[in-house]
């Protein structure tokens, strides 16, 4: 809530009319931005300026602006979700930038994330990976056993939660030099692997989800660890090791 000095910036924004069009980086000067503004509020301001000038506003995905829905993306100054750690673009604040700075804003890039328009990409490949096995086959009848019937070791429950905290934003893919979705797949596989309820289908799940991820065109994992560093939810690459372990045992036995 400081009354700090306003920022004057130069934005280099990827503009692309649609998926088939050729895109390019456009330069926009933008002045008087409060350091307390969020990054997306800064883009709102740019868009209102563009509309006032009769130009088309920049399209980008966003929704909750609380860092939890996973809608926002953006590759900012060479990193997914920008320079700050453990935050999504919507929680990135302009105080992370300096007056006079040039900011590059590009869409997440991957074969499996085709650009729809400007900075908006199609991440439905993630949904299709989940369709391949991101669930426990239990009907929602409510006639399951009592929630406390199977105690779950706190450590495993906590680990499962940390894996389940994935917001499906795709920063892992954007950061990975191979556009691999390993962290995303591994997070889901891990969540269920760590819980007794998920054991029953564990083998088919890991085989099918991994297969779907490849089919979508995500690359192999090179274990560079970039995904873990850029993940706004701090999901650990230990999940990938766990997935690899599960996959190995499933491959041997199935």
């Amino acid at each position: 809530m400081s009354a700090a000095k306003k920022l004057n910036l130069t934005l280099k924004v990827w503009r692309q009319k649609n998926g088939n069009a050729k895109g390019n980086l456009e330069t926009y000067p933008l002045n008087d931005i409060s350091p307390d503004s969020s990054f997306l509020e800064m883009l709102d301001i740019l868009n209102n300026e563009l509309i006032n000038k009769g130009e088309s506003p920049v399209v980008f995905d966003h929704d909750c602006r609380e860092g939890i829905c996973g809608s926002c993306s953006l590759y900012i100054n060479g990193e997914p979700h920008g320079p700050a750690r453990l935050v999504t673009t919507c929680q990135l604040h302009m105080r992370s930038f300096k007056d006079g700075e040039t900011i590059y804003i590009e869409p997440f890039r991957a074969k499996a994330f085709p650009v729809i328009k400007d900075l908006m990409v199609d991440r439905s490949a993630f949904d299709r990976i989940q369709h391949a096995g991101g669930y426990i086959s239990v009907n929602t009848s409510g006639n399951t056993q009592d929630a406390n019937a199977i105690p779950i070791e706190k450590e495993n429950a906590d680990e499962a939660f940390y894996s389940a905290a994935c917001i499906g934003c795709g920063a892992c893919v954007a950061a990975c030099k191979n556009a691999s979705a390993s962290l995303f797949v591994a997070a889901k596989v891990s969540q269920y692997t760590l819980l007794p309820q998920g054991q029953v289908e564990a083998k088919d799940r890991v085989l099918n989800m991994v297969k779907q991820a490849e089919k979508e065109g995500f690359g192999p994992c090179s274990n560079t660890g970039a995904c873990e560093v850029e993940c706004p939810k701090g999901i650990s690459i230990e999940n990938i090791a766990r997935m690899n372990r599960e996959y190995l045992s499933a491959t041997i036995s199935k």
Partner: protein
Amino acid sequence: MSESTGLLKSHIVKKYWMAFTGLFLCLFLTGHLAGNLQLFITGYAGQLQFNQYAVFMTTNPAVKLLSYVTYISILFHAIDGIVISMANRKARPQGYAYSKPEKNSMWSSRNMGVLGTIILVYIVVHMQNFWYEYKFGTTPYMMNEDGTAPLLKDGTAIPNGEIVDGMIMQAGENLGPAMGDLYTIVMEGFANPILVVFYVLAMAAMGFHLIHGFQSAFQSIGLRNKKYSPVITKAGYAFAILVPLLFAIIPVYLFIMAA
């Protein structure tokens, strides 16, 4: 094994092979290094021991078998690596205009293909320098300490022995193959400063390759977790620094000794 998860069907399985062959090659490196360290032994004793070691390495059937596994591993590691690298590229047809990968990952992790290629070139040169020379070149032969008698492969000195086509002939009788003098090939080789520099650089590449590769192999086969990760990381760094360093010191040491 289901159809969908055949031996090379998925990226993960390809990575398993990278890991298994890579870890095997780490073992190989350790063995190779142990052999090489004998070059630090000076004088005739060192020369003899090293050449006897060379005989052992080229004649022992178990070693032979291992050497084939090593060749296959290197080949497979390289081919698998190329296949994976191609898949890596395919996954992002359009790159970023402005990217800062150094903010989230190590240079070596992102350049395993480049490092691997350097190492592969190095292996070819290295094989030509020594293995090829030893096997097919005009090899010098090992003599006894006062230089009067050639040695059989088992180390027996044959006074008045004459070497014909690698065989020791004594009074017209073929007593068997002569012990080659790899030691001298090595010494002569590392008198060349260009070769020494090349070897040192190649070992630097090896070090960077291992800094990523060692830990990565454990990650690929799923052995990393909260408990083991710190140990694997430390062991990986130790291995990646120590092994190539010791390898690299040898040519430098020999060069200095020769000069």
